C-alpha cells in the first residue's frame, strides 16, 4: 500500500478532499482489521501504536553440530496457558 502523502499548509484546501480522506480511512481500517497467526500477535494501542509480539521463548540447548556437542539457542513457541 502506498504511503499517504503529507498535506502541506496552504496547498491542500481542506480535509474535505474526499479521495484523500478515504485513502486515509482505508489504511487505518486495514491496520485495525489486521490479524496475526501464531506465534505472532498484533495489538493496536489507543494512540495508534502497533505492537507486534512474537510468542517464542529462547531456550539454550546442547545439540550435535558436525559431530561436536555445541550449545545453541533455539526459539520455541510457548505452550498455550489457560
Amino acid at each position, binding site marked *: 500500500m502506498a504511503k499517504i502523502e503529507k498535506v502541506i499548509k496552504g496547498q491542500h484546501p481542506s480535509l474535505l478532499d474526499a479521495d484523500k480522506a478515504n485513502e486515509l480511512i482505508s489504511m487505518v481500517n486495514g491496520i485495525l482489521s489486521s490479524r496475526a497467526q501464531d506465534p505472532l500477535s498484533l495489538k493496536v494501542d489507543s494512540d495508534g501504536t502497533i505492537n507486534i509480539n512474537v510468542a517464542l521463548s529462547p*531456550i*539454550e*540447548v*546442547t*545439540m*550435535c553440530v558436525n*559431530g*561436536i*556437542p555445541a550449545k*545453541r539457542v*533455539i526459539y520455541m513457541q510457548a505452550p498455550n496457558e489457560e
Partner: protein
Amino acid sequence: MPTATPFTALGRGNGFPFCPTKVDVSTFDNVRELTLAEAMKIFWNLYSGTPTLSYSWTYTSPTPPNPESYSYSASLNSEVVLTPDKYPHDRVCYVSGISLNESESDGTEEDRGVFLRFQLSTFIRRLYNGVTTDEDNFIGYGAFPARYWTELYGSFVPFYIKMISYGTHFKSSDWDSVSPVTIGGIDLFKAEREIGTEPSGTDIVAGGTESDPTLDFYTYP
C-alpha cells in the same frame, strides 16, 4: 558420585539423540523392561562401574624328568570410568551408545593364562511384545549395562569360560541360570553361563570368584 551441570539436549524427541534399536522380546521368558527415566539414566548418566572379579589357575607337574609349574592369576576390582573428562551433555553426539571394555590378564604372552573382561554399555533398545512394526506392542526399554567375561586357557585354547550378563531380557535356554538382581538401583536380570569346568586335581587347580559390579551415576544439583 560426580555432579554434572544440568542441560537441555536437542535429540530425536524420544529422550535420546538416536532411535533405539527395536527388539521383539515376545519369545524371551525373562523380561524386565525399563522405564524411560531408567533408560535415560543409563544412557545419559552412567558414570562408572566397579567390578569384583578374580580368577587363577595353577599347574604343577611333579613327575621327573620334566617337572614344571605354572601359576596365573588376574583380578579386576578398580573403578572403570565410562568417559573420562566427558560429561553427560557430550553424549548428544553418540549415535547409539557407549561401550567400554576393561581387561586384565596374566600370561597372555604365552599360550596359557587368565583373561578377564568387564564391560560397561549404555546402548538402549526399545522392547516389543510382538512385531516391532506395531507400536501398540511397545512395552518399555532394554539395556545391558554390565558384563563379565572370564577365560582360563592353556595351549591357546580356553578350557573354562564364564559369562555373566546384567540386562533386561534373556532366554533361559541360552544360559545356565537367570535370576533377578538390582545394580545401580535398577532392577535387572543376571544371566550366567559356564563353558567347561574349573579343573581340580593333583596337577591343575583353577577357580575364582566374582561379585555383582556396582554402578555409579552422575547426579545434578
